[in-house]
């Protein structure tokens, strides 16, 4: 793999190449058009671009895939955000009578950002991430994916790496897209367990009965907690963090453990002592004590920003957008490979541009249609364009995106059939 390091100053040269030969426009359009089931769905979608020199333009909209391509190749945006589907074409919103231009639909989205975990990770802070704290994202994805599917019944989820320090989830089910703001915030709050700002010490409080959702989430957290918290973050090793953990327990337990910890230094054993205390406390006390669960959740449970999820018109970074600071592409994540996902292995724009010039062996899908197709200039250019990303590290992500779209297409087919049945075209 190329080790071309990324330099933001090169963006003005790299972006045109990216948008001309690598950005997967046809898949992108296929996604946002949603099978053409609803009229003007793509045309009424808002995009926003951040251009060179931090110029920000909103209310961009396009009539066709070709128009989208042309405009993006002309403007070479540094960042692309996707907004809502409005009642009218966003680019014409100024001509619409005030009050009637409304955001109607949008995917239900979630944004998990590593900075929200700064109080529980010691390896990094702010915009930095490393493979140790990345586990938090893995846990977040596991828990939220299970809940969105199992509890809420959503099926078309697209998880995307943001390019720097977090992940996004796009819930694309039709029902999700139509949710009003109150429903979105209700979903986000159902999924929220960690509450409170800097002023709050104990951010997770559980009461009886323990809701099945919390129970299921704990099962997942427990799979990662020993390695992530006890080993890698060493929360029961270093004194300051031990104190922090102890402060989350009832006073009598804390005093007892402070004593016990004098003689026991191994984190795993210390945690066992904590769990023993929890069992003991639960047995002897009338009301429920769940501090060991609360600790695990405070350190590992996903922290999401409700404000991102609740607005129908909220703009969120687009998949396949470039992150200007890191150069990494916002790629869709295949959950089958979640455990081995490495954010530092995600291709950067400089990397894939460089790969364009070097053919990769064995990456070409030997499509026999080559021989069958007519060899005219335009088609050849098209094919070359379609195959370009396949020659680069971007290829596998686009392929996964294709699979995602194929699954969704099943439901569009159903919808179109239903519609034509209603209109009685057989």
């Amino acid at each position, binding site marked *: 793999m190329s080790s071309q390091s990324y330099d933001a100053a090169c963006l003005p040269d790299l972006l045109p190449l990216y948008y001309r030969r690598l950005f997967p426009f046809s898949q992108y359009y296929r996604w946002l058009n949603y099978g053409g089931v609803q009229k003007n769905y793509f045309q009424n979608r808002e995009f926003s671009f951040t251009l060179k020199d931090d110029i920000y333009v909103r209310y961009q909209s396009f009539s066709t895939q070709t128009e989208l391509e042309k405009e993006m190749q002309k403007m070479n945006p540094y960042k692309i955000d996707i907004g809502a589907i409005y009642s009218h074409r966003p680019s014409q919103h100024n001509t619409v009578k005030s009050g009637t231009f409304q955001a109607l639909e949008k995917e239900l989205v979630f944004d998990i950002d590593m900075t929200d975990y700064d109080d529980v990770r010691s390896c990094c802070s702010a915009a930095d991430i490393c493979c140790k704290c990345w586990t938090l994202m893995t846990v977040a994805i596991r828990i939220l994916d299970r809940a969105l599917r199992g509890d*809420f*019944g959503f099926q078309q989820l697209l998880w995307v790496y943001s390019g720097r320090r977090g992940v996004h989830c796009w819930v694309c089910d039709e029902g999700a897209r139509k949710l009003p703001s109150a429903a979105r915030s209700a979903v986000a*709050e*159902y999924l929220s367990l960690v509450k409170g700002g800097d002023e709050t010490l104990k951010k997770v409080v559980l009461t009886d009965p323990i809701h099945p959702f*919390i129970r299921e989430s704990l099962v997942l957290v427990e799979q990662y907690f020993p390695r992530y918290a006890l080993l890698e973050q060493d929360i029961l090793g270093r004194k300051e963090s031990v104190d922090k953990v102890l402060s989350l327990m009832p006073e009598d337990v804390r005093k007892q453990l402070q004593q016990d910890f004098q003689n026991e230094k191994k984190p795993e054993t210390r945690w066992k002592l904590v769990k023993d205390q929890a069992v003991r406390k639960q047995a002897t006390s009338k009301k429920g004590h769940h501090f060991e669960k609360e600790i695990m959740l405070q350190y590992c449970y996903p922290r999401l*920003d409700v404000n991102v999820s609740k607005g129908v018109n909220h703009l969120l970074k687009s998949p396949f957008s470039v992150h200007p600071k890191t150069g990494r592409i916002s790629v869709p994540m295949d959950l089958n490979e979640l455990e081995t996902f490495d954010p530092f292995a995600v291709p950067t724009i400089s990397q894939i541009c460089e790969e364009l010039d070097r053919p990769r062996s064995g990456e070409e899908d030997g499509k026999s249609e080559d021989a069958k197709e007519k060899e005219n200039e335009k088609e050849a250019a098209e094919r070359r364009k379609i195959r370009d990303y396949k020659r680069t590290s971007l290829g596998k992500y686009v392929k996964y995106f294709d699979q995602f779209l194929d699954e969704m297409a099943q439901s569009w087919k159903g919808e179109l059939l239903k519609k034509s049945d209603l209109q009685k075209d057989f």
Partner: protein
Amino acid sequence: MEFSSRRRRFLTNPQTELYGHPLQFYGQPPLENIALAEFEAFAVDRLKLLKTVENVGVSYLKASEQYSEKLRSESKALNFPHRPGGDDRKPQAGLSENDKRRKDHISHFILRLAYCQTEDLRRWFIQQEVDLFRYRFNALDSEQKLEVLHRNNLQYDTINVEEKIVLKDELVNSSYTVSGITVEHQDFYKVPFQDALDLVRARKVYLKAGYVYIPHKDIVTIVLNDFRTRLSKSLALTARSLPAVHSDERLQPLLNHLSHAYVGQDYSIQKNVGKIALDQIDALSGKSFPLCMRQLHQSLRENHHLRHGGRMQYGLFLKGIGLSLEQALQFWRSEFIRGKVDADKFDKAYAYSVRHMFGKEGKRTDYTPYSCMKVILSNPPSQGDHHGCPFRHSDPELLKQKLQSYKVSASGIGQILELVKGMHFQLACQKYFELTHNIEDANFSLNHPNQYFIESQKASGGGREMKREADTAQRSQENSATGGSAAPREPEADGPQGVGEMTEDLDSYFQDA
């Protein structure tokens, strides 16, 4: 298209049928002729009732004894239905049950006209009507509740016995109120989660594959959501027919008064622009800022940064105390560039936001400083945030430490913590005011951070101007409600009055600064 045959029947039957049920859904507007005097009187009375609903909602827990008792006595005093068992016997004095229900019906629709016009008004009106409806629904017996469900076509499937057995543990563990016995003996309804958002939001119910499983006894939430949705839609429709209503000269002044009252004193009219100098802010923050703003100011000075929630809450407050746009820009800029933000970045990213607060960008709304209610109830702070109400959002231990560091006496802190425990956050802040200003009784009802500032300046001898401003603030604060304040004091009960007196009274009742 679905027809609600029962509602149709109401239209064609005599009036007694129309008001046959103690709880109304306000599906159809009144069709009779109403005297103008009655029109005004009904509207004002309902407004008072809704204001009470708002006040008790902040001061007491919604299901508590005091809450119900206060609402019941207020409903009775204002001649609204107050007992579900009320029958139609002619009482010794006052209105018959039927008349009360009629008043309830008519007054609701009049207030729709006044409150459909803006997003804020709609939101306030819906919130109070839903709370009122919830209170009334809970007062019904189970048979009456069933009737309400059926009259409103809430057809949800129940789950069969096999499914109940399979789900029993989950159902019991999902809700504090569901026991094994509940599962055995009650019907459980499978409801799409979109119809039960309150239960989902609070995770009080079992949710699987997009459906919540609700025992019959908890069905009130469903009914409430249905009521809220319908009311919201109706208000939108009403707004469209408003021009026709406004053309009637008799109605226009009244409707304006009714909704205008809720704009009230919102501290957006800057009386003292430029009277505060930037170098006074540090001192003022210790002396005259409520705790929330003092905390925000301190965080800003310490971290040279505030997140969006904090910038909004604090920035708008500063605007309210009289900072001009230029001063505000200078203030934020000088602080931010001490941190990680360079001047250039500030001008690009944050200056826009400051100008936006002053109504100079975007849709040019001159945003109003947040009231206590807004700070307490919306946008709770999370990791990295410093906004919100410290009495509401801070750990009691941390709050105690903070108050100690501000040299509040131990007994004073004790009193404050008691109030916090009882969820009386604004009273706690008032106590903080009393302790830090060394006075026995604050003599005002706190419901806005800017009000705190003005009262503080007044108490420290800020001069007659401050006093005048505080007094008008006080009066209209009693009357305002939207996204605004909750004056815990009771509205005065009105005796019978003539129309002329009524309108005069209205004027003074709804006067704003």
